[in-house]
């Protein structure tokens, strides 16, 4: 209030400005903190359909033969990605806990070398955290020379903890052309 002398008022104003600027800087940081928070939140709840980016270890998992889960595979390439990309097996029936392998065929028909990156998405999203992959081409960049073709394996098992109401889920792989950013990374590395 105005009872204070002018210099005291200026001091009070200065103190308050510092606090408010601190809030502003804090909120700018919070905007960026939302990025890891978003990933953590999605990991914990598994609502984003994102699967783990690291290989799972398959050991002493009990196979639940009483249930059969149908897993469907869909492939697509992003705009501007010329590769042919398809799953050798469109759908598999598995028991929870049982190891399975699906191979994906990729071919680079373009006249240049391309580095591809596959990004998985599971639907319904709640099934994502129960899909355990012990080996996947999506964990790494996949380089293909011009005209080259390859068979990429994916080994997985479904966690027996999978909620009872899920009997069918779809795994979609989208293939992106990451040649330019992969080159940058190689030059820097």
């Amino acid at each position, binding site marked *: *209030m105005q009872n204070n002398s002018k210099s005291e008022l200026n001091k*009070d104003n200065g103190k308050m400005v510092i606090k408010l600027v601190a809030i502003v800087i804090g*909120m*700018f940081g*919070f905007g960026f903190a939302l990025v890891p928070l978003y990933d953590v939140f999605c990991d914990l709840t598994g609502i984003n359909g994102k699967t783990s980016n690291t290989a799972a270890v398959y050991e002493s998992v009990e196979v639940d033969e009483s249930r059969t889960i149908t897993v469907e595979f869909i492939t697509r390439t992003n705009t501007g990605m010329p590769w042919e990309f398809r799953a050798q097996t469109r759908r598999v029936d598995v028991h929870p806990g049982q190891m399975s392998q699906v191979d994906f065929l990729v071919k680079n028909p373009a006249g240049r070398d391309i580095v591809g990156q596959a990004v998985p998405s599971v639907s319904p999203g*709640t099934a994502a955290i129960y899909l355990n992959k012990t080996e996947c081409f999506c964990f790494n960049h996949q380089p293909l020379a011009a005209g080259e073709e390859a068979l990429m394996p994916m080994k997985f098992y479904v966690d027996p903890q999978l909620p009872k109401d899920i009997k069918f889920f779809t795994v979609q792989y989208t293939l*992106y052309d990451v040649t330019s*950013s992969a080159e940058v990374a190689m030059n820097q590395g």
Partner: protein
Amino acid sequence: MSTVTDHAHHEDDHHHHAPSGIKRWLFTTNHKDIGTLYLWFAFIMFLTGGAMAMVIRAELFQPGLQIVDPHFFNQMTTVHGLIMVFGAVMPAFTGLANWLVPMMIGAPDMALPRMNNWSFWILPFAFTILLASLFMEGGGPAFGWTFYAPLSTTYSGDTTALFVFSVHIMGISSIMGAINVIVTIFNMRAPGMTWMKMPLFVWTWLITAFLLIAVMPVLAGVVTMVLTDKFFGTSFFDAAGGGDPVMFQHIFWFFGHPEVYIMILPAFGIISAIVPTFSRKKLFGYASMVYATTSIALLSFIVWAHHMFTTGMPVAAELFFMLATMLISVPTGVKVFNWVATMWRGSLTFEVPMLFALAFIVLFTIGGLSGLMLAIVPVDFQYHDTYFVVAHFHYVLVTGAIFSIMAAVYYWLPKWTGKMFDITLAKWHFWCSLISVNVLFFPMHFIGLAGMPRRIPDYALQFADFNKWISIGGFAFGLSQLLFLWLLIKACRKEGEPVSDQVWEGAEGLEWEIPSPAPYHTFETPPVIK
């Protein structure tokens, strides 16, 4: 406006004489000068953004592509939105805060007058950069004012960098303005001006200022991420690099939803000042108004995902955001009922500010109601990205925010200039605006429900008749604002009858106790608060 300075000279001879001409406006630290600058800037931006709306409506007058190409059409919708939000509504409210907050709390000026000068004078640069990008190769931003990734990252032109920098400058400007308002209200109140004696316009602006410093930095963060994704190879929103485009929407709307309340809370303060004056009664439920404003502000942080119901969220999240959104109608309803209760058995008169305030109450409620419809998840699946949404946010922003700003200008203009404005012209402006704005926006509900998508330059034939009406309403509303321009020019040239200090019979508050026109310096010694 130059006579304001003349007045200052005999009023405060011990003060340095204000420089004249352009230097007076460039170097001014006087809250009234800066308020005037903000208001004129906002009005110029309103006409600029309005001209873009005219381009949009001309193109949509008939089905088919006839006037502009789709890419330019997209630039028009984008820049129209950006200019109206950041260039018209927000600076207009800041201008009103500059003029009124010190006068209402009995302070001699804003707490940080030099920063005040800066926060205004960086704005013209921001909008020059934004508008200049329209004339560059590849055109200006064309991804909608919401600049969703990947539209703004993968599919945008190089001028996106200019868009990002101009948003940064706008953000810095409003953050500085908000800090100034908060410090002024906390430290500069006259003795006896306790919290619960502050006029509601001061209260609503205080809460708005806190919203601004909380979310404008988040906007700055998200545009920075767009910048680095586009130009520096980061992958915040790029799935190929491990990012997520849906995350853009979460961060953007974490800013975006409080932002829409930033554009309406000061309006609530204005209406709460005008309705009691012309009802000749005290405002009904003052304390509940303060609490309602606070709860709206707090709720605004937990409803952002209702803009994203169709992105495939889990049902639990959709239910949460639906119910939280509907909860906001409770404090908003409290406000509307309080205004109605204030008018109940009052001696009502219908001067121009009151006409705009009444139009605000009715039309803003229509906009609130369509918002409530959009909050319902299954219904939103049908309405999402249709003209129904366009109708909704234009009812709350044009007949809400803009009408409240016009009401405020008509209410306080005689205090600023010392002369009554041209009442006949003002009534023409009101009635032309009121009728045309409804011809413009009401049919948008129908074509939206019928399935016309927003942000498109062409449409199916069955929407042709309604679109013709909408365009006619649009042109009429645009032309009506020229009446307002004419009226304001006349007011600034000091035409009209001199007014008393109180101006309006029934007006209460410190600003009505100082002479009309308001002297260049007021409350050098604090007033006594009864």
